[in-house]
């Protein structure tokens, strides 16, 4: 099998770390060779962050480049646009419709593009947009956006619902398992 590529992109502090941990666990349990790569340190402080998840029979490079991503899971609207060039021709974008203004926008040095998801769709890319923040809040915490988005990603996978739940149980701290299961359910059935 050809190596599959998933990018998780967002804003530092949004919880992409847990999402990649969950995905890594799940894919290892499915028997794949897996590489998960993210950068720690300065860029995490509210900056644009990206995690690469690659799996297949044998994975070499830890990173995903232009035109290679099967999925881009974006925790924020313009982050999907920022990384769009990495998407494969028939790749899919799953995007949280949340808007987080970056500092250049906050101080008025740049404009937040209002129609960014429409522009991506106009290019012919597959866009699955959802308000993951509201669903996470419904589940009990705005921090569960990551699990809601993973649930949405799960819809496109040939891995059973129970396997995903099992992976959640293995990666999430015990006291947050119920909350995250609920978030997963809401994201999956949305």
């Amino acid at each position, binding site marked *: 099998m050809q190596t599959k590529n998933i990018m998780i992109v967002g804003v530092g502090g949004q919880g992409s770390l847990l999402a990649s941990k969950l995905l890594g666990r799940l894919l290892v349990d499915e028997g794949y060779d897996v590489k998960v790569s993210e950068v720690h340190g300065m860029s995490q402080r509210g900056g644009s962050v990206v995690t690469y998840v690659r799996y297949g029979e044998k994975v070499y490079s830890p990173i995903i480049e232009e035109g290679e991503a099967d999925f881009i899971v974006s925790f924020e609207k313009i982050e999907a646009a920022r990384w769009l060039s990495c998407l494969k021709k028939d790749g899919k974008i799953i995007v949280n419709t949340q808007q987080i203004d970056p500092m250049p926008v906050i*101080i008025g040095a740049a404009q937040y593009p209002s129609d960014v998801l429409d522009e991506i769709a106009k290019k012919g890319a597959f866009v699955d947009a959802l308000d993951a923040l509201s669903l996470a809040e419904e589940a009990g915490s705005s921090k569960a956006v990551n699990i809601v988005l993973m649930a949405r990603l799960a819809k496109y996978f040939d891995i059973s619902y129970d396997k995903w739940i099992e992976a959640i149980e293995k990666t999430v701290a015990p006291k947050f398992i119920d909350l995250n299961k609920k978030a997963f359910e809401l994201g999956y059935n949305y």
Partner: protein
Amino acid sequence: MKELLIGNAAVARGLYEAGCNVISSYPGTPSTEITEFAAKYDEIYCEWAPNEKVACEVSFGASLQGARTACAMKHVGLNVAADPLFTLSYTGVNGGMVICVADDPGMHSSQNEQDSRHYAIGAKVPMLEPADSQESYEFAKKAFELSEKYDTPVLFRMCTRIAHSQSIVETGEREEVGVKPYEKNPAKYIMMPGNAKKRHPFVEERTEKLTALAEDCEFNRIEYTDSKIGVITSGASYQYVKEALGDSVSVYKLGLVNPLPVKSIQEFASKMDKVYVIEELDPIIESHCKNIGVNVVGKELFSLIGEFSQKTIAAAMQKDAKKVYDLEMEIPMRPPMMCAGCPHRGMYYVLAKNKVSVLGDIGCYTLGAMPPLTALDSTLCMGASISGLHGFNKAGGEESEKKSVCVIGDSTFMHSGVTGLINIAYNGSNSTVIILDNSITGMTGHQQNPTTGYNIKGDPAAKIDLETLCRSVGINRVSVVDPYDLKECERVLKEELNADEPSVIISRRPCVLLKYVKPKKPLTVNKDKCKSCKKCMSFGCPAISMHDGKAVIDKTLCVGCGVCEGLCPFGAIESEVQE
């Protein structure tokens, strides 16, 4: 057991299984997790040292005693530890010693992208470089044998993409090797000229032996295919080569990157029509090849600058690019910034408002350089803010002293700031030093340090009292301010700038990301009172933005620090959540 581990965790596992007993390190991205993971094993004594030189010397002492030992640091940390390193090469070891150093090609979280392989060449010690987590684990395990067999410290080179990428590792069990007996051996361990002169020939002979080892060892391997195009590579570059070029090339993969083999490279090259050297940063393998008469293509195709990827290699080898989607749209940049409620912001706001020159240092607070505060004038290396300010003021005189300060974090101050402060006191400049004390080593992800009162395991430890320390080196004027209290910060700043002796201002408030710092309720903007003056925006808090002409506070980011409440001239920011 099969586990998905980041490279750094795999190194820790390897060190652990090889019977490592003592690890002393200073945190630095991308090396920090080596020591954090090692600290989870009770069999290893682990500590955060005040800096890398101390860490390396602690490790030396443990080796001298006979234990297997390691230290870990980022690439620039090895500059600090270079002093012990170069002479450790002469003394060699008793217990095996591994010095882990993590490079940061692409500068994800660093001030330069120096190539630490130069240190291996300069200090004449072997250097290992793994290419994934499994190798990180295996090489770390074998590094001690190498160290003990060849009587040398071993440099262990990681880079960001190996250190922070998770891949599958098949782990084993720890082997207790105990502590070797210690015997006094002045000729080997007292490096005064008479002894050192005798040790230098040993070092040169060792390099010859290690070169012979490099010709045929478990760290290096050749992957022949049908192709007569050869690539010599190592580390992360190996993965990009395999990804981009697959079986279309034969690959000589190096794991022992110093010393480099001679004969086996010549032999490999003789079987090829053309040989490429693909290595990030400096042309070290390339220069070696050219020195031994092997004609290779290297830096004319592959950059000296930044990180590689499968794309950069494919492009250099003229393979097709795959880009499909191109959005002709301006996407605003999203640079990193200080968090909402960050205590550093208050002090920076006051410094920017008073238009003082600010010599900065290394830590989260380097982000004070970003708009809208743009509060910094320089950032060089750990500790350079204090020493630099002294020179800045000696050159600029009284006028400079009255409008210049430096800022340094608590951990960085302990690392190498205190020596600069001693210089200020001793050589007398009326400098104003601001210690941004957020009670933790922030940027690298919350490590304890000598000012926090806790050790690496989170157990209580001796707590350095910054005020007493500053006074004891000869600074009479030491004040403490709360950076959330902007008025008081400004008053003290003006007073200390105008004082005719050196002073230290400790800006003290714990990092808002610390677990024990409980966020307060988010603040809200009363739209009727907001006059759209944007004064709150000048504070640069990521939680505040303007929407439809009015300030809005993002309740998912706001921690209720309340500083903006005091900034608003119209009382529009309210601390009670309006239901």
